[in-house]
C-alpha cells in the first residue's frame, strides 16, 4: 500500500507491444504491470514473470482437506458416535474414501481460488487503480514505476519511442484497498 508515480503507455497492436516489452526490460525502467483486454499468449514469458507457485499451495490445501476428512470422520465413527453399519468395522476406510476425495478437491479448489484472488488483488468490495479506461476494451497498457531519480519526460519520450499511441504520468495507489467505485479517492486529486 503505497502511493507512487507511474508512466503509462497505451498500445493498440500486439506486434508493437511485444518489442516494446522487450525494450522496457532492457532499458532498466521498472516495469510495474501490463494490462490487456484478453489473455495474450507468451506475454508472461516476455515480461519475465516466474512460474506461479499456486499449484504448491493447491497441493497443501488438498492435503489439509484429506486430513480434515479422514480425521473428522474417523473421530466420529470410532470415538464420538459409534454405529454399526451392516456389520462393517467402525474404522472402515473404503467407505470414507469418496468423502475424503471430495473434501480434498473442495479444499484445493476453494483454497486456490482465494489464493488466486489474493495474489491478483481481486475480491468483491476491493478497488484497484485503473490506469486507462480502455485497458479492458481494446488497448494494451504498459505501466512503469517512477521514482525521484527518474526523469518523467525521459520516461515518456522512451515510451513514445517504443510505439505508444498515448502516454501519461499518473500518481496512483499501487495495490488494492477497500473502497467504492462511485467515490473518488484522496490521491486522485493529485492527478488533476
Amino acid at each position, binding site marked *: 500500500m503505497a502511493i507512487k508515480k507511474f508512466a503509462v503507455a497505451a498500445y493498440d497492436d500486439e506486434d508493437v507491444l511485444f518489442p516494446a516489452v522487450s525494450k522496457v526490460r532492457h532499458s532498466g525502467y521498472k516495469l510495474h504491470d501490463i494490462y490487456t483486454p484478453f489473455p495474450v499468449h507468451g506475454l508472461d514469458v516476455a515480461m519475465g514473470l516466474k*512460474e506461479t507457485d499456486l*499449484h504448491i499451495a493447491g*497441493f497443501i490445501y488438498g492435503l489439509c482437506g484429506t486430513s480434515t476428512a479422514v480425521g473428522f470422520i474417523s473421530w466420529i465413527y470410532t470415538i464420538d458416535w459409534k454405529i454399526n453399519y*451392516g*456389520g462393517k468395522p467402525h474404522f472402515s476406510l*473404503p*467407505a470414507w*474414501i*469418496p468423502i475424503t476425495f471430495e473434501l480434498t478437491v473442495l479444499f484445493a479448489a476453494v483454497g486456490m481460488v482465494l489464493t488466486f484472488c489474493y495474489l491478483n488483488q481481486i475480491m468483491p468490495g476491493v478497488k484497484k487503480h485503473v490506469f486507462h479506461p480502455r485497458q479492458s476494451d481494446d488497448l494494451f497498457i504498459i505501466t512503469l514505476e517512477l521514482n525521484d531519480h527518474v526523469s518523467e519526460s525521459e520516461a515518456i519520450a522512451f515510451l513514445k519511442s517504443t510505439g505508444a499511441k498515448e502516454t501519461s504520468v499518473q500518481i496512483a495507489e499501487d495495490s488494492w484497498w477497500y473502497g467504492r467505485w462511485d467515490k473518488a479517492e484522496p490521491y486522485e486529486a493529485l492527478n488533476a
Partner: protein
Amino acid sequence: MNDRFEIPARLRNTSLALIGVGVLTLLCGIAVLLNSHDDMDKTRFWAVLLHDSVFFTFITGVSIFVQAAVSLAQGAWLTAYRRVPEAIGANAWIFGSIAAIVTICIIFGFKVHGEHGEMVNSIYPWVTPGTDKVLLGKKPFLNPTMFICFTVATVVLWGFFGNKFRSYSIAQESAPKNDTKIYWKVFRLSGVFLIVYGLSQMSTIPWLWVMSVQAHWYSTLFSWYNFASAFVSGMSLIMLWVVYLKNQGNLLLVTKEHMHDLGKFMFAFSIFWTYLWFAQYMLIWYANIPDETIYFKLRQHGPYSVIFYANFIINFCMPILILMARPSKRNYFTVTFMAMVIIFGHWLDFFQMIMPGPLGEHWHINWYEIGTFMGFVGILIFTVSRTLSKSSLIQNNSILLKETAVHIA
C-alpha cells in the same frame, strides 16, 4: 525434413537376445512344466503365456486408439512423434495373434483333473461347464464359438486399422503440398476404429480373455478397468520409445512440451485407473455379496495380498507423488523411470487379474514368468524398431506439422 532411424547394433542385439531368452524359456517351459505330472505346472505354463500375450496385445493396441482419438479430436500434439504410436500400433496384430493362438490352445488343448477326477479346463472353466448352473447360464455368450469369433475379429481389425493408419500417414508424405484428402480419410477411419475399439478392448475382449478366467464372477466395469490399465502402460510405452529415439538424436521436432503432454497422460490415467480400481473394489466391499467378494478374498486376504498392495502402491502412490510436479514430467530421467515402473505395475495388475483363478495359491514370479516377459519385450523391441526404421520419423507434409512444432503443453 529427413529424420531416419537406423537400428543401432546394440538395440538389435539386445532384442534378439531377449527373444532368445524367451524362446529358451518357452522350450524349458514345455520340457519342465507342460510335461510335468503336476496339474499346477501345466496350468502355470498356459496361464503365464496368456498373461503376457494379453498384456502386450492390450498395451500395443492402445497406440492405435491414441492415433484414432487424436485424429478425431484434430490434435496436433501427437504429430511430432506420431510415427512411434504408428509403429507400435502396426505391430499390435503380432501380439494379438500370439494371444489368439494361446487362448485357442487353452480352449481346445488344455485339461486337468478336477476335484472329482473329471477333466476340466482350470483356466477357462466355462469350456467344461459340466452341470454348473451358473456356467450353463452364461453359455450363450461364454462358448468357444463366440470366443473365437470375437478374438479373430479383434485381431484382424486391429491389424487392419493399425497398418492402415500407418500407410495413410506414409502416403501423406508423397501427397501434394497442403492436401487434406488423406487427413479427412484418416479422420473418418478414426471414428470407425473407435467403434471397433469400444466393442473390443472396452467391452468384449477383456470379458472373454481375462474376466472369464473366473467365470462365476463378473464386474460390469471390468473392461473399462482393463482399458485404463492398458492405456496408462501404453502411454508409458510410447514415452519410452520417444525418450529412446530422442537420445539417439532423432525426433527433431519433439521438445519438452511434447514430453510434458505424455507425462500428463501417464499421471492422469494412473489416477483414472485408481478411480476404476476403487469403484470396483468399494462396491463389492460395501455390498458384501459372497458371489462378488470371492474375487477380493483371494487377492486381498489370500495368497496374493503382497501383489494386491504392491499393485496399489506402484500404480497409484508412486505416480501421484512422483509425477505430480511439473518439473518431473519434463525430466527425461523421472519420466523414463516412471514409465518403466508403470509398465511393470500394470503387468503385475494383469498378473493378479489372471493368476488367482487358475493357480490359486500356487503362483510364482520365477524364471518362467520373467523369461516369458523378456521374450515378449524382445519381440516388441525387434518389431517396432524394424517398422520405425522403414520410414522417416517425422511425418513430412503433414498439415499439422507447424502446429506441432510450436506446441506448448
